[in-house]
C-alpha cells in the first residue's frame, strides 16, 4: 500500500463518483465507465480503496452470481451491509468502480466486508489488488468458448490468479476434478466442499449427456472412474493410475431430503456437527451454490448460523430463477449460458408435473460469446419431447438457430413461434394461461428482464442494490 499518491487517489475517486452519478442521472445503468475513469487517474486505485477489508471472491463457470447473493444476504441478515458488485460488472473495471465509489475522497473504504463476483479471466488482475480472505471456485464447465478458447485455458487463468495470493484461503468444489486441481502445489490453505456419495440417488442422476468436460485425469491422462455422479463431470472421481481423486471434504451435503420448485431441504455435515438446512431456491445446482456459500463462510471464519439460517430466505438474483406475475400468469426467468447450466435448467422444466410454455432467447453479442454452437451440446430433447411443454417461443438475434436446434431435438415445427420484439413476446407467451419458463442467455436476459420487470413493476438491475 506504500507509495500510493493521495492526489491520484482523490482524482480517481472523484472521477469514478462523478461518472456514476452522471450515468444515473441519465437513467443509464452503465457499469464499466466509472471504473475506467477511476483507472485513468490511478491504475492501482483498487488496492487503495479495498485496503484492510475482509473480502470473499467468488469465481468459476456457473453459480457465481447466486453464491454471491447468498453470501450477501447472510451478511445483511446479520446486520452488516457489505460492498458487492452486480453481475455483469465482474471484470477489473466494474469491480474497481464498485470499490472506488464507496470510498472516501482520501481513498479509505467506508465498508469492512465485501462479496465480489469475479470473472475467471479477470481474477489475476483483481485479486492481487484486493487480497481476499477467501476465493471460492464453484466449478468449471465449457462456457463462452470464443472468449476463452477451452475450459483448460480458463482453469489456467484461475490458477495464475490464485498463484498471486498465497495468503488467501481457497474454497474449492471437491466434486469438480478441474477445480480441485487448483490446490496442487500451492501454499494456500484449502477448504473443500461438495455433495457426498449418499446424498444423490444414482438411479436418478443425469448421465444421459455423456459430454464430459473432464473425462481424463488432469495429471496423467487416464480415464477417471466414478463412485457417483451428481451432474456432468461432478462427483466422486478418482484416477486409477496416478491416484488423483476427490479430496476429503471439510463440509459436505450428506443428504438431500427434499427438492421442490420452492427449494431444497438438505443435511450438511460439518466437522463438528450435522445440521438440517433449507435452501430457498430450487434445483440441484442451487444446492451446490448453497454449500459453496456455507463453505466460504466457514473458510472466512464468519458466524456459521448467519449463513445457515439465511439460506432459506435467499431471494433469486437477477434473472436467475427470478419469478414474475403478469396478467395472472407466473413467469420464471432462468439465465442459461452454457451446456451444463442449460441442461440443469432443461431438467428442471421437464420435471414439472403440469403443462407449461417454454421460451428460449439467444443472442450472440460479445457478452454472450459470438459462438452459439454450444446449444448443440445441450439436451433440448428434454423439453422438445416433453408432453407437458405445450408451446415454445424463440427470440433473440440468433432465434433462427435455437429454433433449428429445437426442430432437430424433435419439437413439432408448428409448436414453435419466433417473436422478435420483447413486448410482443411478453404478450404472446402469457396468452396461454399456463406458467411460463423463459430461458434467455445473458444479453437477451437483460432486455427481456427489462420488459418483464417494467410490465410487472420490478426494478431495473442497477436500482436493485443500495
Amino acid at each position, binding site marked *: 500500500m506504500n507509495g500510493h499518491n493521495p492526489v491520484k487517489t482523490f482524482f480517481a475517486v472523484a472521477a469514478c463518483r462523478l461518472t456514476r452519478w452522471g450515468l444515473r442521472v441519465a437513467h443509464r445503468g452503465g457499469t464499466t465507465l466509472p471504473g475506467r475513469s477511476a483507472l485513468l487517474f490511478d491504475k492501482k486505485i483498487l488496492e487503495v480503496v479495498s485496503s484492510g477489508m475482509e473480502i470473499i471472491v467468488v469465481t468459476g463457470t456457473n453459480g457465481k452470481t447466486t453464491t454471491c447473493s447468498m453470501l450477501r444476504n447472510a451478511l445483511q441478515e446479520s446486520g452488516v451491509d457489505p460492498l458487492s458488485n452486480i453481475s455483469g460488472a465482474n471484470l477489473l473495471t466494474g469491480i474497481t468502480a464498485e470499490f472506488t465509489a464507496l470510498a472516501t475522497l482520501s481513498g479509505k473504504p467506508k465498508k469492512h466486508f465485501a462479496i465480489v463476483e469475479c470473472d475467471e479471466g479477470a481474477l489475476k488482475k483483481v485479486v492481487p489488488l484486493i487480497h481476499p480472505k477467501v476465493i471460492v471456485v464453484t466449478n468449471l464447465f465449457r462456457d463462452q468458448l470464443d472468449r476463452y478458447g477451452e475450459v*483448460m485455458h480458463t482453469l489456467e487463468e484461475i490458477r495464475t490468479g490464485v498463484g498471486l495470493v498465497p495468503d488467501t484461503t481457497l474454497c474449492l468444489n471437491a466434486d469438480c476434478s478441474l477445480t480441485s486441481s487448483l490446490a496442487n502445489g500451492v501454499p494456500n490453505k484449502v477448504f473443500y466442499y461438495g455433495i457426498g456419495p449418499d446424498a444423490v440417488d444414482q438411479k436418478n442422476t443425469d448421465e444421459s449427456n455423456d459430454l464430459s468436460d473432464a473425462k481424463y485425469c488432469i495429471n496423467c491422462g487416464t480415464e477417471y472412474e466414478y463412485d457417483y455422479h451428481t451432474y456432468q463431470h461432478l462427483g466422486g472421481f478418482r484416477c486409477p493410475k496416478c491416484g488423483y481423486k476427490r479430496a476429503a471434504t471439510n463440509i459436505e451435503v450428506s443428504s438431500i431430503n427434499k427438492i421442490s420448485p420452492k427449494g431444497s431441504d438438505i443435511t450438511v455435515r460439518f466437522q463438528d456437527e450435522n445440521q438440517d438446512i433449507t435452501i430457498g431456491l430450487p434445483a440441484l445446482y442451487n444446492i451446490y451454490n448453497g454449500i459453496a456459500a456455507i463453505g466460504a463462510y466457514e473458510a472466512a471464519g464468519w458466524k456459521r448460523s448467519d449463513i445457515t439460517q439465511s439460506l432459506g430466505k435467499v431471494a433469486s438474483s437477477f434473472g436467475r430463477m427470478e419469478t414474475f406475475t403478469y396478467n395472472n400468469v407466473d413467469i420464471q426467468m432462468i439465465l442459461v449460458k452454457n451446456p451444463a447450466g442449460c441442461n440443469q435448467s432443461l431438467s428442471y422444466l421437464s420435471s414439472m408435473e403440469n403443462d407449461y410454455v417454454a421460451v428460449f432467447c439467444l443472442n450472440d453479442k460479445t457478452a454472450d460469446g*459470438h*459462438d452459439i454452437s454450444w446449444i448443440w451440446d445441450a439436451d433440448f430433447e428434454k423439453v422438445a419431447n416433453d408432453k407437458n411443454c405445450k408451446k415454445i417461443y424463440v427470440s433473440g438475434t440468433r432465434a*433462427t438457430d435455437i429454433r433449428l436446434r429445437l426442430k432437430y431435438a424433435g419439437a413439432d415445427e408448428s409448436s414453435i413461434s419466433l417473436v422478435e420484439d420483447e413486448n410482443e413476446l411478453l404478450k404472446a407467451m402469457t396468452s396461454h394461461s399456463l406458467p411460463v419458463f423463459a430461458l434467455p442467455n445473458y444479453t437477451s436476459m437483460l432486455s427481456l428482464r427489462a420488459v418483464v420487470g417494467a410490465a410487472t413493476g420490478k426494478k431495473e438491475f442497477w436500482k436493485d442494490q443500495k
Partner: protein
Amino acid sequence: MSDRKLKIAHLYPEVLNLYGDRGNILCLKKRLEWRGIDCEVTEVKLGDNQSLSDFDIFFIGGGQDFEQEVLLNDLRSGKGDSIRSAVEGGKVFLCICGGYQMMGHYYQTKEGEKLPFLGVVDYHTIGGDVRMIGNYAFRLPAESGGSDVVGFENHSGRTYLGEGVTPLGTVLAGYGNNGEDKTEGVRYKNLFGSYSHGPILPKNPAFADHLIKTALKERYGSDELEALPDTYENEAHDYVLDKVLRGDMSGD
C-alpha cells in the same frame, strides 16, 4: 427405396466433442430418418478395435489440446491405418477443426515442435499466436454441391495445402485455412475437411445432403434423395450469411 440404410461412425466422440459438433451426427441422422432411410450410428472410442470397413460416413470433430496426446497414441496403435484405407476406398469423411488438422501430415507448434499426424492428405498446420475466431462463409465448387456454407471458425493453427490439393471451398468472408490464401478446408476423394463449427451441417442442408448423396452413391450406386422442407434450416443459414457478407462479425 425404403430399404436403404447408411452406417455412420462417430470417431472419438468422448474426446473430440467440443463446440457442439455432435450436432452434425444428429443432423445426418434426422435427415435420413425423415426420408425413411435407416441410419445406424456407432461410436468408435479410444481403444475400440472394430473394423471400419463397413461404415458409409465417418465424422471426426475437434477437441482440447490437452487430450490430443491420448488420441495420437490410439491412432498409432492401428486405427490410423484403417482410417487411411477407408478414405482411399471412397468412404465419406467429415472432418472438423482438430479432426481436419489430424488428417494432414503434421502440426507444428508455436515452439517449433512437430506433432506427426495421419498424413492421409498432403497438408500441414502451423500453430500461431492469433486466434482466428468468428462467423464466416465459404463457397463450395460444383463437385461439392456448389452451395454457400456458413459456420463459426475458432482456430489458431494455420493450415497450408500441398501442391495440387483441392480446398473444400473459397472464403467469402472470414479467415478459412490460414487467413491468407482464401482457401477453406480440403476435399480429397470423399473426405471433406473444414474448420467450420456451428455445427456445420444443420445450417447448411445442401451440404448435408451432398454428403448423404455421396454416401448413397457409394453404397447403392444411386444418389436419389427426396427434398425436405428446409425453411428453418435456410432461415438460420441466410441470417448468418447476410451478417458475415455485411461485415458484421460480432453481434453487438
